[in-house]
Structure formats: C-alpha cells, structure tokens
C-alpha cells in the first residue's frame, strides 16, 4: 500500500474539475431499480440530449447511470424516499432537501426520508462540496417531485375517468373538486411498478408561492443530536469488530528502517499487520490497541523537509512554471499605473490552517468475501469507493461506502485515507475493524488549507476610481480571484506552486485568501486617497447585488455613524463567490496590555437568492463568521523539518465561546432569484473586515493571516 503523500492530488484544483457526464446506461436493462424493491412510483431526472447509449467501459449491473443525479420513490405506503449521493455533515441539507421535495409533492417534511451517501443505494454523485447541493441537487429534486405530483394526478384522472384539471394534490392525497373524491398517494401507486423518466423540466412552484420551502423547518432529526443517540461513524459497532491503529512515520517523507513489535505482540489479543512501510495494529478493544501502538519500537529514515520559517519565499520560488500563462488581462495595467494619481504595491500572506473537524477521520470496514463495506465520514462517497477499489484492486461495484451523518468536514474530508487504512486492517484481520484517528493524527496526516502569497499592485485617481489592478496569487488557489470591482485595466493570475505540506479544499477554498488580499488592499487604497472605505467600494462597484449587501450591512452596523478612536475601530469588507453575496462589518477593540484584538460586534449581510430554510441559513452564516475568527486572528499550522509542531488543541487555538462577539446576520431573501448555496461564502468577509478595523483602531496595517496571534505590534506604523 503506498502512502500516497507525494502523489496526492491537489484537491483544491480537483474540486473545480467535477466529473462530467461520462456514461449512459439503459435504465430498464440495468436492473438497478431492483434495489428499491416492491412497487410504487419511481421518478428520476434524465438530462435532455443524453446520447442514449452505453459507454464501452464495462461497469457492474448495479452501477446507476451518471446522468441521473437522484431519484425519488413513492411507496405503496405513501412514504416518499429521496435517494441522493449528497451527505449531511452539519450543513442541514437532510432537512432543506426534504423541504424542497415536500413543497412540490404538497406534503409535510416528515413524510420524506432521505437516503444519503450510500453508494449501493444512491445514484453516482461527485460529492458534497462547492456549495452545489442547493442550486443543483435542490433544483433537480424539485423537478422530480413536481413530475411525481403530476404523474399522481394523471393516475387519479385515469382511475376516475375525469379531466386532470379538476384534480389537485395536497396533504399526500389527490382530491377531486371540493373533496368529492380523494385518494392517498400510496393508494394510487399500490400494486404498480411505475417508472417515470423526466426529460423536460415540469413547472416547479415559484419561490414566491413556497409554503414548506422558504420556512425555518427545524432539523428533521434534531432530537437525536441533543440526546446523543445519533450514530456517527466513530460510534458504529459491528459484530466481532476489532479496533485498529496505524503506526505513523516520525516525519513526512520518513521510511521505516527497523521495527521491533515484540512488546506489542505480547499484549493480549493484539495482532500486528505489516505491508511495506504500512504498520497497523488490531486488538479486541481500543484501549489495548492504543497501548500496543505505544509499545512499538520503530526506527525511521528521515530526510530533510521544509520548515515553517521562510516558507512563503519557497512558495514563490516553487512556482510550477508549466502552469503559468493563465493570466486574465483586460486593458493595460502598465499604462494605467503610469497615469495613476495613487499607486500601491503590497504583499499579503496566508498561513496553512487545519479544518479540525470535531469528529476526527474514522472508518469501519468489513469484508464479506471479496465484497467490502466501509462506513466513513467523507464528502465524496463515490470517490472514496473508487479509491478503495484501486487500493485493493477490486472493481468498484464490490465496494460499498456508506456515510453516516458526519461530525463536520469543512472541505477537509474529501479523501479516503481512514477508509483505506481500516479496510487494509480488516482484510488481514478477517474481521470488521474500526479505526478512529486521534486528534494528533488529524492535525498531522490530514491535509491543510493552502498557504499563499498574494501580490497586489493598484492605481487610482484622486476621486477614488480604481484604474489599475494587478493580482498574483501563489499557491493558495484561484477561487474568487477575479475582482468584482469594475476596473478598466486588470491583470489577474494564479500561480500554482509546490506546497511543502499536503493541501486541499477548505470551506470557501482560496476565496478567503483572495478576499483578504483584495479587500485589505481596497482599504489601503481608501486610506491612501483619503476616502471612506465603503464609499471607495461603492464608487467602483456596478454589481447591484453586491452593492445591496454592502448597503444592508452598513445600515445595520451604523457605518460612518461612529468614529474610530484609539484602540477601537471599524472595518468593512465584502464580495461575491459561488452565487452568494456577502458584506461584513466588524468592530474591534485592542486590549490595553496584551495588544490583542477583541471582536466587539459583527454584522454580516448575505444574499443567496431565494432562501430555502432561513433558520438553517442563519445558522450557517453565524457559524461561518465564528469559524472565520480562527483563521483571521490566531490559527496557523506550524511545521519544522517534516513535523507538525502544534498538532493539538492546546497548541492550535480554535475559536472558543469567549472569542465570539454578538453577531447580527442580515439575510436578503430574493424570491425572484434562483437559490445558491451558502455553506462557504459567508466565511470570506470577516478576516479583511477585522484587519481593516484593526488598522482603523491602531494605524497598524496587518497583511498576513492570522492577523495577530500574539497581539498587534505597537511601533510598526507601516501604512
């Protein structure tokens, strides 16, 4: 088994390359419908213009067609079941997707069950990331549900021999006229096996008429979370299950030189499993497995590895030349700079940070002959299935991945490491194995949000019109790299680089880094010109939706009504990404002796089209602001010669309850616009707003994230 460190894909980029429609299978011949069992009505959405032929590549009989994103089943008992490859990890889609189906089928949310993230039971899905669930899966499910409703009306019309115009759906029944006749959905589908492929999109209910969608429906299984009854991957128990541990190298890139496992093997019920440099342990209980791991005496060959010091320089030097040349250029930055009244050139940096999901990576793996079942918390069940198939050289249809609703991910659970490790142990043990990563493993062997260096040069006229904008991002990523401001002359470029640490997706991707650099720089321009920071933004902003959130945040915050004083300041920042528009205002106070910034108040305005669940959305926006506090003020992964120096919560400070100021969220519900996702973009505004507030309070301009882990330098009046 390879360790896959060197060859790990750049997940940040991989996320942008969501697999397209690769295969088409004839639904009727494939027999995957058998999975549903029984009768009833099955509806799925079929992409229009599908080629309607099989690809030459052979896949198993149970492999569903990839054009079909989800399907929806109405059973003979009237129960409505949605099958989707999306997974729930706290973002509340188990509820919000059910709401959208309930809306179209005219039933209450509790009539709906969502089967999610089980590769044997749901259609292929690229994964749950990129804020795609609401705009894509939500829309498709609404379409399917609307088609199902129309089909049920057809069935009733046929049965009663009446015009369908006289019939209506509501409360899980089709009713004729003023209640003359009525039939429950289950009664209509009983004894039938109806399959409806929806090719054209039936009319879905406009958001303006929503009754179930658009309301703050509580989390459907909320009670299980407050009672401790919800079963996460790490809570699962299988018959005969053993507990696993994996021996980790002393440093990145280290290879095993020698291993003495005698002491560990003498512990009762312990077995050592070795496969090249992979060394694992299984034991009948987790405690013994842990003791056995500690009893292993391993010697490692360690090669020199990059260290934290000076790594920003190395990122720039490590640029991979082959990837250059993707600059987006408009006009001439050089000419515009030459004639600008005000010119600025600044460099911003962003450290590696860790997702630190509270549920660490975990997996339970069980072999039954050549068939492998793995339960694991991942955002990409189908790609983890494929990773497993590749690792064990079996076909994907021999692998079933199931994702219990997961203890958060934030972009950090794309890869299948824990799943592969558990499966490797289970294969040798001949029994199911549970593997739960420790916090230290999570901090060391997962991947990080990319660090980055961002160089910005700009030019502006005295009246505040920005005329030149040049922006280079090294390594951290291209998300939201384009400026939303209407600047005539631009050059914008992302430069991929060799990262010293394994890096990948993190909530919002590089949108946080790029917004930090851009919105800090806009603030610097405002200061250089001597114009209010909000005014500068509005002067250069044409996008009406972005203008609207800036106005909304500023109004709620009372922007401009209070003057910054020594040790107290206000900052504003905003932007647009993935269809979400955000503006954030922050009030910061500098604590006297420690010179640490304390957040006193945050106002965030957010607009993502028609809101599906205002309660859940508010929760997401608040949560994003809170999570952003860590990356803005104090989170940083420190590393030294291939080791993470602070792989524990005692050394890696995450936001705690006392760090959180009152947060006021302004939601702009645009029922006239399509719904966009909201899991990510609300995180991007806080860091620059806080940095700008610190500048207003102190005159000190901070250009690196985290801004002030050790307080604000007193003397550096560098702006």
């Amino acid at each position, binding site marked *: 088994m390879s360790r896959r460190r060197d060859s790990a894909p750049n997940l940040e980029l991989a996320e942008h390359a969501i697999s397209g429609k690769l295969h088409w299978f004839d639904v009727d011949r494939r027999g995957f419908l058998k999975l549903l069992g029984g009768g009833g009505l099955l509806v799925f959405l079929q992409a229009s213009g599908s080629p309607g032929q099989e690809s030459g590549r052979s896949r198993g009989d149970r492999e569903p067609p990839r054009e079909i994103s989800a399907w929806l089943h109405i059973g003979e008992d009237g129960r409505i079941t949605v099958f989707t490859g999306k997974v729930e*990890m*706290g*973002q*509340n889609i188990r509820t919000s997707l059910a709401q959208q189906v309930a809306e179209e089928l005219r039933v209450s949310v509790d009539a709906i069950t969502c089967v999610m993230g089980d590769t044997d039971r749901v259609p292929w899905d690229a994964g749950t990331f990129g804020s795609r669930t609401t705009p894509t899966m939500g829309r498709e499910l609404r379409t399917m549900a609307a088609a199902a409703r129309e089909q049920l009306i057809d069935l009733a019309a046929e049965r009663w021999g009446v015009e369908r115009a006289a019939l209506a759906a509501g409360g899980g029944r089709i009713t004729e006229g003023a209640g003359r006749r009525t039939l429950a959905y289950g009664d209509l589908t009983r004894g039938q096996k109806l399959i409806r492929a929806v090719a054209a999109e039936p009319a879905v209910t406009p958001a303006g008429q929503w009754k179930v969608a658009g309301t703050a429906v*509580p*989390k459907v299984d*909320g*009670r*299980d*979370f*407050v*009672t*401790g*009854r*919800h*079963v*996460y991957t*790490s*809570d699962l*128990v299988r018959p005969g299950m053993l*507990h696993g541990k994996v021996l980790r190298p002393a440093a990145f890139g280290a290879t095993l030189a020698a291993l003495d496992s005698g002491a560990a093997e003498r512990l009762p019920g312990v077995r050592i499993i070795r496969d090249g440099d992979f060394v694992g342990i299984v034991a009948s*209980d*987790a*405690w013994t497995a842990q003791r056995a791991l500690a009893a292993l005496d391993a010697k490692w060959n360690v090669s020199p590895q990059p260290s934290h010091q000076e790594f920003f320089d190395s990122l720039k030097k490590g640029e991979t030349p082959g990837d250059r040349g993707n600059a987006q250029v408009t006009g001439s930055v050089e000419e515009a700079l030459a004639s600008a009244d005000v010119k600025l050139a600044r460099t911003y940096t962003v450290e590696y940070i860790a*997702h*630190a*999901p*509270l*549920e*660490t990576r975990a997996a339970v793996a069980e072999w039954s002959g050549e068939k492998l079942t793995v339960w694991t918390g991942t955002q990409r069940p189908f790609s983890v299935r494929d990773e497993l198939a590749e690792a064990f050289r079996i076909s994907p249809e021999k692998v079933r991945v199931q994702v219990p*609703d*997961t*203890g*958060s991910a*934030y972009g950090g659970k794309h890869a299948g490491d824990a799943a592969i490790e558990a499966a490797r142990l289970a294969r040798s043990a001949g029994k199911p194995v549970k593997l*739960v990563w*420790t*916090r230290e493993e999570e901090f060391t062997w997962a991947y990080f949000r990319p660090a980055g260096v961002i160089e910005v040069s700009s030019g502006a006229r005295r009246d505040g019109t920005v005329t030149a904008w040049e922006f280079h991002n090294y390594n951290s990523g291209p998300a939201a790299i384009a400026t939303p401001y209407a600047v005539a002359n631009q050059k914008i470029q992302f430069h991929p680089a060799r990262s010293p640490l394994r890096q990948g997706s993190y909530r919002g991707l590089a949108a946080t880094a790029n917004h930090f650099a851009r919105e800090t720089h806009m603030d610097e321009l405002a200061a250089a010109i001597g114009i209010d920071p909000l005014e500068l933004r509005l002067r250069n902003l044409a996008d009406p939706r972005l203008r609207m959130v800036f106005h909304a945040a500023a109004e709620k915050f009372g922007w401009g009504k209070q003057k910054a004083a020594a040790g107290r300041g206000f900052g504003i920042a905003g932007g647009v990404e993935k269809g979400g528009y955000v503006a954030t205002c922050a009030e910061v106070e500098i604590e006297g002796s420690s010179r640490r910034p304390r957040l006193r108040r945050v106002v965030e305005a957010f607009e993502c089209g028609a809101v599906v669940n205002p*309660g*859940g959305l508010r*929760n*997401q926006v*608040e*949560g*994003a*602001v*809170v*999570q952003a506090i860590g990356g803005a003020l104090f989170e940083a992964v420190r590393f030294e010669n291939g080791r993470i120096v602070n792989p*524990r*919560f*005692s050394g890696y400070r*995450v*936001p*705690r*309850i*006392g760090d*959180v100021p*009152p*947060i006021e969220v302004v939601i702009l519900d645009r029922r006239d616009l399509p719904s966009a996702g909201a899991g990510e973009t609300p995180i991007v505004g806080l860091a620059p707003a806080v940095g700008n507030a610190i500048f207003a309070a102190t005159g000190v301009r901070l250009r690196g994230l985290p801004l002030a882990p050790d307080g604000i330098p007193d003397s550096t009046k560098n702006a």
Partner: protein
Amino acid sequence: MAELSLTVNGKTRRVEAPPEESLLSVLRDRLELTGTKYGCGEGQCGACTVLLDGRPARSCRTEVSEAVGRKITTIEGLSPEGRLHPVQAAFLETEAFQCGYCTPGMIVSAAGLLAANPNPDREAIVRHLTGNVCRCGTYPRILTAVQRAAARITKSR
C-alpha cells in the same frame, strides 16, 4: 484487567477493564454509551464531558478507577424516560448545533453548570463553556440555549 463496578446513569454496571483505562474509552467501547465523544484526548475540547457526582469532568482524562464509587451521568442519562432535560430542550429549540458532534459534551457541561448555579450570568456561562469546542461555530446559539434553560429551571423552582 480488573472487575470494576460503576454507577452509570443510576444503574450499576460491571465492567472488565484496566484500572488506568480512560473513563471515555470504557463508556464508549465497553458499555456502548457512545453519546460521549472523543475529540482530543487532552481535555481541551470538552466533547467527552460527563458528570461525576453532578460536576462536569473530562472523561478522556479520567481513569476509570477514579470514577468507581461516584455517580456517573452521561448524555444518555439526562433524559430518563425520554423527557428532555431543560438544557436539551433549549438546544433543540434554538438549533444550537450543526453537525451535533460537540452537542452531548456541551449539554452535559451546561447541565453541570446549571445544577451548581441555576442562574448564571453571561460571563459565568462563557467561563464555564470555554473548554468546550464547537467547530461549526454555534456558540451564539449555545449561549442563548443555556440562558433559556437557566430561565426555565429558575422559574420552575
């Protein structure tokens, strides 16, 4: 290995375990009380919080032998016969969770606070919950939920 007798959620439970094994590990892996969570193993995140004789304790840093003879309350013990503890009810009403993984530890921690101090001010709640991490960032709701539970407990006395 030793045969230990524990009082968990009002019941006597006998368990074979090394005396130095963590209470968290015994609860989760030997007694199948998985509501109590592992988060860090160093007492920094609070996901493993249980009550020992009514006071919050980090079960990941408590050896099981230390818990012998004391009343252990886990999240599963807060709602006997399915009636939610006021803190659980308030968390549910205010949706003071997203992924829910920190929630049992948060609730048990807060229940311990309110048992000792039914009417804490904001500062006291913040101080008490500073050792409980919620990575989803639901702290504002958690604060509201604990205040709401406190108000109800005070009113019902």
